[in-house]
Every structure is written in C-alpha cells, then in structure tokens.
C-alpha cells in the first residue's frame, strides 16, 4: 500500500493550506472548549485552582439568580424571535416589489445597524430611553402623559430592550429572505392572480411555503442568538433592575470578570451549551419534516 508520489504531494499541499485555519480553530475554539469543561470541575480563582468535582454544578442548581437568568434569556427568545421573523417577512415582501434601486436602498437602510458599532447605537438608544431628557419620555409628555424610566422600570425594561433588539437584528434576515423570495418563479404569482387570489393570499399560500427553509434557518439562528443576548445587556442595563434583565450569557461574564470565579462561570457556560444544543436539535427535528421537496 504505497501512496503515489503525486498523492503525497497533494496531501502536503492541502495540509499546508489548511494549516492557518486549522491552527486557529484548534487554538481558539477547541482548546478553550476543552478548558471550559475542565475548569467547570474546579474552584478556579486568581488565588486557587482545586478540583471539586460536581460542586459547581450542584451549587448552581440552588442559585435562584442563575435559574432566573435562563428564564430571562427565554423571555428574549419569545419577545424577539417571532417579532423579527414576522417583520422580516412583511418588509421583505414589500422590498421584493421595488425596482432594483429601491431594493438596494431599503436593504441598506435595514442593514445599517450591522455596520454601526453597537457601542454607538446603544448610546443613542440609551438617550431615547432616558427618564428626564429622552425622546421616548418627551413623546409621552407631549401627549400629556408622565415620563417613564424605561430601562429601570420593572415592567418596561424588557419590552424596551426587545424593541431595540429587534430593530438591531433585521438586516441579515431581510437580505436572506429577499434573496429567497426572488428565487420563486414569477409564474406562480401570475397563476394565482388569474385565479383571483389577493396579495395576502399569495403571500400566505405561495411565498411563505416556498421560503420555508429560510424561515427555518432564521428561526434556529434567531433562537440561538436571542438566548445568548449579551451586548445589549452590558451596554443598556447592566443586568438590572433587580436581575430582571440578567440573561445567562451576561451572568457568565459577570461571574468571571467581575467576581473572578472562573470555575463556576465555566460550569454555567457548559450548561448553556447543552441547553442550546438541545434547542437546536429539537427545532431541527420539529421543522425539518416539513421541508422535503
């Protein structure tokens, strides 16, 4: 079983070419991933590093803030994902009808948050939600209502973040959705028109079934993304008021970089990993039956 000289040369060439990507992958994804597992069984601070078995996990099961952070992350999934997908479908179906320049223009507008640093755009939104001087309060005042402290009020803090979050996340879904809609043959709509279908009927019975793979993709990535909401919390509320906006991803960072408890933070990270893997598999099993054609 001798490999031919050409084959060996080919393999050497391939490994040389894959080397940068593979080295980066092993060093910055696989190695940290293994480390997280190992750390999660240790009490790990700047002072000590001792093996404590499952103690981190056991303690987390009794930690009300930890358990609640999953609930908060779940609120973000429910509050943002359906809204993002519905808005994406509506806006995309309007954009497809535009001319070429209109398409480019409107897609650029909705893509804008992706090319604005999250720090700068949160600065604006923090001002909008400001109690004394913010735009949202001013609009209320001009209608004769009292100002609301949007981000520190326990009833408004989550909806305020949902609105901001959804407006930040429409760019990429709209691009994918418009591309999917453009690939639907025009004849389908003409046939529907001849049969007297309204625009809504065409959207519901032709467009949505045919872009189902895209909707599935957006749902899965949306759930995964919203479950890990992090930067919004860091920059807008810092987890408050009273842990009402403390999501699991935020709690991990806080535990690690505010309290330097790397062990228990890693245990949280591992639990989050399993929850997300579970969600992904369930969603895929649930939806993928529908998209076989």
């Amino acid at each position: 079983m001798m490999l031919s000289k050409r084959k060996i040369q080919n393999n050497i060439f391939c490994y040389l070419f894959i080397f940068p990507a593979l080295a980066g992958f092993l060093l910055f994804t696989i190695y940290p991933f293994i480390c997280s597992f190992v750390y999660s069984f240790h009490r790990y601070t700047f002072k000590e590093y001792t093996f404590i078995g499952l103690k981190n996990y056991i303690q987390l099961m009794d930690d009300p803030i930890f358990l609640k952070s999953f609930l908060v992350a779940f609120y973000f999934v429910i509050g943002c994902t359906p809204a993002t997908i519905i808005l994406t479908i509506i806006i995309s179906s309007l954009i497809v009808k535009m001319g070429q320049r209109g398409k480019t223009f409107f897609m650029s507008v909705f893509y804008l948050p992706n090319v604005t640093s999250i720090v700068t755009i949160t600065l604006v939104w923090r001002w909008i939600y400001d109690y004394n001087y913010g735009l949202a309060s001013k609009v209320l005042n001009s209608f004769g209502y009292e100002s609301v402290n949007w981000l520190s009020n326990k009833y408004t803090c989550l909806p305020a973040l949902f609105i901001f979050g959804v407006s930040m996340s429409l760019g990429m879904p709209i691009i994918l959705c418009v591309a999917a809609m453009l690939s639907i043959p025009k004849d389908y709509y003409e046939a529907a028109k001849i049969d007297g279908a309204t625009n809504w009927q065409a959207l519901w019975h032709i467009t949505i079934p045919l872009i189902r793979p895209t909707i599935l993709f957006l749902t899965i990535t949306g759930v995964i993304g919203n479950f890990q909401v992090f930067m919004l919390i860091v920059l807008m509320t810092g987890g408050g008021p009273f842990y009402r906006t403390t999501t699991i991803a935020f709690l991990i960072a806080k535990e690690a970089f505010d309290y330097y408890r790397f062990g228990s933070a890693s245990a949280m990270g591992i639990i989050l990993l399993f929850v997300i893997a579970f969600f992904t598999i369930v969603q895929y099993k649930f939806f993928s039956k529908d998209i076989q054609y």
Partner: protein
Amino acid sequence: MLKKIILILFAIFFLIPYFWMGYLSFKPESLVVELIPTFGDLTLENYEYMFGVRHFARWLFNALYISVMGVILTITSASMGGYVLAKKKFPGGQFIFYAMLASMAIPGNTVLIPKFLMMKNLGLINTYPSMYIMCISGVFGIFLMKQAMKTIPNEIMESGQIDGANELQIFWYLILPMVKPVTIAIGLFTFVGVYGGYYWQMLMTRSEVMRTLPLAIEFFKGERQPKIQLTMAAAMLASLPLIIVFAMFYKYFIEGPTMGSIKG
C-alpha cells in the same frame, strides 16, 4: 403605491435613532432637547471638542489597525482553507469541515473565559495581537469561501496544470481572482466586526492609550458625564469609518451572504 408608503414608514421609524444621533451632534450644548428639530443653531463645536480630547487620534488608529490586521488574517486563512476544502481531497478534510461547522453552535461566552485566561497567561493583554489574532479561525469566512469555490469548474484548474502552472500559481492567478467578490465581502464583515467590537477589546485593554475608538467612547461617557450632544458627536465620529466603508461597498454587504449559494 400603498406598499411603497408602508415601506417608507418602516424605514423612517428605523432611521429615527440615526437622525437624532446626527442632529444632536451638531447642536450646541444644553440638557433640554426640543422634540421638534430646529436647524437655526447648528454648530461644529462638539466635533472640535472631540478632536481636542487626548489620545483621540490614537484611539482611531488602534481601531483601524486591529481591524485591518483582522481582515488580513481572516482572508488569508479562509481563502487557503476554503480552497483545499472545496477543491481537493485529503485525509481528514471532510472531518475538519464538519467539526468547524458544528463548532458554530458553541456559545461565545462559554469559551470566553479560557480565551481570556490564555491571553493573560501568554502575557498578551494590552497588546494589539490579542485583539485581532482570533480572526484567523473565522469559520463563517471558510464556509462562505468553500461555497463560492465549489462553483468554480474543475476544468479551470486542469487548464492551469496543462499550461505548466504549479499549485500555488493556480491558486493565486486562477482561483483567487474568481472569488474576488466573496473575498471582499468576508473582509468587510470582519472589518465591521473587529472595528465595532466591544467586550473582547475591553477585556484585552488595560491602559487608556490602547483603547479602540468605540471602546474609548463608552468609557468617555462613563467618566466625565458629558452632555448628550458631545456623546453623539463622539458616536458619529466612531461610526464614520464604518459608514464610509459601507457607502463604498454596500453592494458586497448586501449580496455577500447569498453569494455562491443562490447563483450558480
């Protein structure tokens, strides 16, 4: 017509924060902001103040420098890796690709802690490389690159071999020019991602001079409690490089994610 109006209303609602960011950055300092915009008293004084802030030019340089380095690393590793994964057969190639795909499900914050400790133990904190070195493992870039290179017919590589070109020459002169749009798109996504990054950059910087502009602005707000007009001028200046890049290359941003997959 009605559709156009609805769409324009959506767009207007969407652009409100950007309008206020721009508008306020040109207003004279005051705490009270009126609800109906007035344009009589616009001024450049907020921008003049920001340019006078110590280290401002350095912060801008930091952000641009690490973004450019990140783009170079991503494009290099993604184009080379994507090429052999799409066009060559070698032991382990498939496995590497699927392992990379599966790794996209790993939550960012789960691996954040080991990455931070690794940089700390290597003594790389508060250096430039710590802020961009991770770009070398851009799985998203490899995926896009592989998809795009798959669509290149094998005859092109064969014609190169017949003409006596070696593997490197085929890659450089024949393959790379054909995936230029995807390369540009990947580069742009990386640029925007690294330039606008916040949390990692915050973990990696200790001294004031090493901050990137977006990061510095967040601190700037916290430390000196400036008036909203100054903050908005700072936000405008920090987004300006990104907005210029977007205005120049918007086509690639919008077509990038669907390149290779839809068109044959």
